[in-house]
């Protein structure tokens, strides 16, 4: 039984980069790009951070040293604490509330 696949789903290595300008124009574009990144990282970003909406969160992240740019739970220490706390809350819940523990 034949199965279709779209050929354009399998570009070979180097596909899509044939149109890079290269040469002097390429170098200029590279320098401009680096300049823009520098401006954002060292000037615009810090300036925007002082805004009323962003500053409280930025200060909080700095103070608590939270890895706010990470993508999975094993990369964030707070998740380890949260998991531990939740697990113990479920397993060793204060029984004076006369509720059974909910987890084995």
């Amino acid at each position, binding site marked *: 039984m034949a199965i279709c696949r779209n050929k354009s789903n399998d570009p070979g*290595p180097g596909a899509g*980069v044939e149109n*890079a300008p290269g040469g002097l124009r390429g170098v200029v574009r590279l320098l401009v790009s*680096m300049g823009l990144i520098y401006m954002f990282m060292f000037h615009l970003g810090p300036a925007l951070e002082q805004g009323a909406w962003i500053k409280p969160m930025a200060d909080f992240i700095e*103070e608590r040293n939270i890895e706010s740019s990470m993508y999975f739970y*094993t990369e964030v220490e707070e*998740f380890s604490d949260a*998991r531990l706390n*939740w697990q113990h809350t479920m397993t060793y819940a204060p029984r004076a509330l006369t509720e059974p523990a*909910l987890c084995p």
Partner: protein
Amino acid sequence: MVENIEQRSPDDEVVMDKPTSQWSDLWKKEDYMAIWLGFFILLVGVLIYFNNAPSGMDQTISSANATLEEQADRAPFKTIEWYQAMDAKSKLKATGSSIGKTIKEFTSKPQGWSGNPVHAFYMSEETAGEIRRKASVKYEAASQRAEAALEEAKQAQQAAAAANFNNESLNEQATDEIIQWREAKASASSAKKKVGVSAYNQIPHLIGLMIVLAVFFGIGMKFMGKSFGQFVKGFLFVFLIAILAYTAASNATMKHYGIGYAAWAILFGLIISNTVGTPKWVMPSVQTEYFIKTGLVLLGAEILFGKILSIGVPGIFVAWVVTPTVLITTYIVGQKLIRIPSKTLNMTISADMSVCGVSAAIATAAACRAKKEELTLAVGLSLVFTSIMMILMPAFIKAVGMPEILGGAWMGGTIDATGAVAAAGAFLGERALYTAATIKMIQNVLIGVIAFGVAVYWCAKVDCAPGQRVSAVEIWHRFPKFVIGFITASIVFSFMYSSMGADVSYAVIDHGALRGMSKIFRGWFFCLAFVSIGLATNFRELKEYFKGGKPLILYICGQTLNLCLTLLMAYIMFYKVFPEITARI
């Protein structure tokens, strides 16, 4: 075995394959090689950390558990002693062993920095001393606040105990004082870390790591019939860009915006490939799928199904009902209403928005064989909206006076990136953090199921000739085999986690084989993959996918549904169906 016969259709864009599998696939195909390499790292991690459990672990666990039982019987709230017993268990980490520290040092990414990027790689004793002095002042203040909060909490608890814990008002006051103590303690712990700063030089370690990874992946390339030498030569360049990506991500301001290594890796790669051009000698090491698949096998080990059971029912309902609903609905809307031409783009965006951002996008894109440009677009959309939601949602929740737990559940189920969830949740309060983190962890576990489901669906329904039925054998031939490694790693580690029990698993699996080995290498592999994506992507091709703004419309529509449904389900679960659980949090 039937050989692979290519038949050209009248439309040259479609290649008709006959399905085939051979035994030599086990060492010649990228999917299988990713599995062997991933399994190798996991095995090494298990051997190291299972043999380096913290000393006195069993005694500490049984003593702490006895205290927890006693305190649970004593008062209708979590007492100071309850928390102190839990804190004793939290210190049990196999990564704290000497070999764990050595691995961490050797595989470490560039360090956090603020004004001077050199500090990402090198810090002199003089500078470290200056930082310690400044941090000591803040730590002293934070430490005093934590001690004062502890005294207040003790007094409140004693007052409640004096009334035999029968006075609700005193009990509530004690609970509030204890929560304030916990928050002050968390601040003091964070401040203490900065006091521990010492001089470092990352450069020799990074060079060593580069050589190790070059050989590690190069051996795989050799088995697959490609040139080891050409790969290693180009790998040095790719690794260097990955270092730059991590350096940019570790800038303090960029962390505040939640802009992580994935975005920088793609950006730097794109800039190089679209300005001066990616050098030809680098291309043999631009192996996006190879790096991603190996990273995904490691990610599989971090998906522990046993965790879900230990962290409660309401979160399971919120995550496992809302997430698949939003995913499927957004996919259907994308196909039928918005009419996104590419099914793979549609699915990748739906997954990253409904599940958990970048990691879900990577797994789904690999499972449905999405194009690099599609993954780039999905990741970019996710990161932009993550930054916005991380800042706006806590502010909104506070402004409308939403309860902390409801707010935490809402953020956990809707903010894509895990780190951003931690920041937003902690900003609201401890209970919000714990609830948000729980929901997000359950969503993280969902990645395994989603990736598997998408892979099967794609093989059986999407990747086939119109109107033709696909047999189970053909599904097997077309199935992305690395998903098997991904799921196997998840099942094996979940089984180990359940067999060893939550306490021991925390010490040797969670804070051992996973955080001490799998997570570290997975981060590097994904970074290499995103650099490769950037180095092989053309801006013009990327722009094509923005046409009409359909991906953005899809994301906004899907996220709006996600926000509404998550809030509704969180309210129902935490306040109507399981209020007794909510009362304990």
